[in-house]
């Protein structure tokens, strides 16, 4: 006699071969396993957060995100040196944390709108995973950024390079959220794409709010309020004027 699945049974979508295979992690959450899963088998992270939730995994993911941002921040600070060596990592880690806090409620709402069956803690863990993967890639990009930071005195060039590298990292990170939508039964994917744009804009504005990160200043935080596009245009104009002199 067949029995119907009960409410308490773990959610199990149709299996997808390859990277997004929805399967359990082999032996819980240790840092090397989490990193391996993020890079190779993100479906395992989604499975653990949805079906086998333990606080250790999201904590590891958040630690990875913040430590990665701190490490990359040191490279960012090496352009100006001096106090920027600790100010840049502190501001980048702080900016990342604030961006996560600001965008988390809207992410949960957008996952619901997409028809995804996920709890708040799963969504929180997935956001940590997305930012963690971005941070991991930034660590990989750190030698490239360091070579350029030692070879130029152009703030505009370095800022553009850091934004470009961050964009690559976060693009891969945000793909995890799309994977979550796919695995957890999301029907409308455009909502998560829209949310990704919101997260990127918030992060860019956050780095402008916490400026200067690449260059230097007498103050820890600026007194003047600016949108990031205005700030970029001004930085480019100043860089152009400096080159022309």
């Amino acid at each position, binding site marked *: 006699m067949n029995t119907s699945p009960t409410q308490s049974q773990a959610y199990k979508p149709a299996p997808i071969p390859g990277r997004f295979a929805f399967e359990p992690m082999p032996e819980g959450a240790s840092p090397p396993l989490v990193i391996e899963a993020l890079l190779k088998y993100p479906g395992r992270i989604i499975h653990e957060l949805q079906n086998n939730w333990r606080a250790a995994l999201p904590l590891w993911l958040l630690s990875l995100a913040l430590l990665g941002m701190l490490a990359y921040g040191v490279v960012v600070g090496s352009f100006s040196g001096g106090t920027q060596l600790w100010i840049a990592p502190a501001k980048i880690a702080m900016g990342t944390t604030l961006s996560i806090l600001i965008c988390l409620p809207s992410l949960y709402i957008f996952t619901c709108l997409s028809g995804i069956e996920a709890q708040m803690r799963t969504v929180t863990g997935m956001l940590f995973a997305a930012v963690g993967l971005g941070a*991991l890639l930034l660590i*990989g990009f750190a030698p*490239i950024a360091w*070579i350029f930071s030692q*070879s*130029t005195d*152009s703030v505009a*060039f370095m800022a553009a390079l850091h934004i470009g590298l961050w964009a690559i990292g976060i693009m891969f990170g945000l793909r995890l959220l799309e994977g979550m939508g796919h695995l957890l039964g999301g029907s409308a994917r455009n909502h998560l794409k829209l949310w990704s744009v919101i997260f990127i804009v918030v992060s860019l504005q956050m780095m402008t709010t916490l400026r200067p990160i690449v260059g230097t200043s007498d103050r820890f935080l600026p007194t003047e309020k600016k949108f990031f596009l205005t700030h970029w245009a001004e930085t480019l104009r100043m860089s152009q004027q400096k080159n022309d002199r």
Partner: protein
Amino acid sequence: MIGRLKLLLRGDADRVAESVSRVGFESVAQFSLIILIGAGLYGATLGLWRGPLQAFYTAIKFPLVIFLICLGNGAINGMLAQILGSELSFRQTTVAILMSFAIAAIILAGFAPLTLFVWFNAPPLESKDAILGHSVMLLTHVFIIALAGVIANRRLLGLLRKMSGSEKVARAVLFSWLAGNLFLGAQIAWNLRPFIGSPRLAIEFLRSDPLRGNFYEAVWRALRHLFF
């Protein structure tokens, strides 16, 4: 060693994939040695037009550029390979990239007699056509290095196709590696300049300010002077 060279040049994806899968210190040492000798030999012909001392310096710097690219991009190339679904480990990634540089180095070493012949026929530094000689040498080397790069990357694509089992994944991984290696490589080459040696500047291992300025800003400045 000769067997390894033949294997690399034939591009037998099955056997190369097998040797990359069994990655060990021996493979890394062999590929590094091939790069050191092949790229070093070709590097010497690259600097010879400017003078024997420049040839000696470039013979050291040319393989150095390759090793610094592998070192600088090692971590990110490994991560991208895994994220894009190739199933290659960090070690396998490093060996695969070293292998493609080793293939390029063998091809470059094979072209060394040809570039020596071009050098023999090019107007020398002391002649009134020195600028022409410099331009001929520059264009010849750009063409040969590009050719070696294209062939080596075709071999690498074959290997990636074999190891990942997917054309799409292989192309994505190769594209990401190429983009990163070219981006960093251009800057490292800029930092370690000169390679051919400018006719108007003294011979030196590195310019007096090797870390001043970057390749992309120089290209941007040149474009601005040209068009604005």
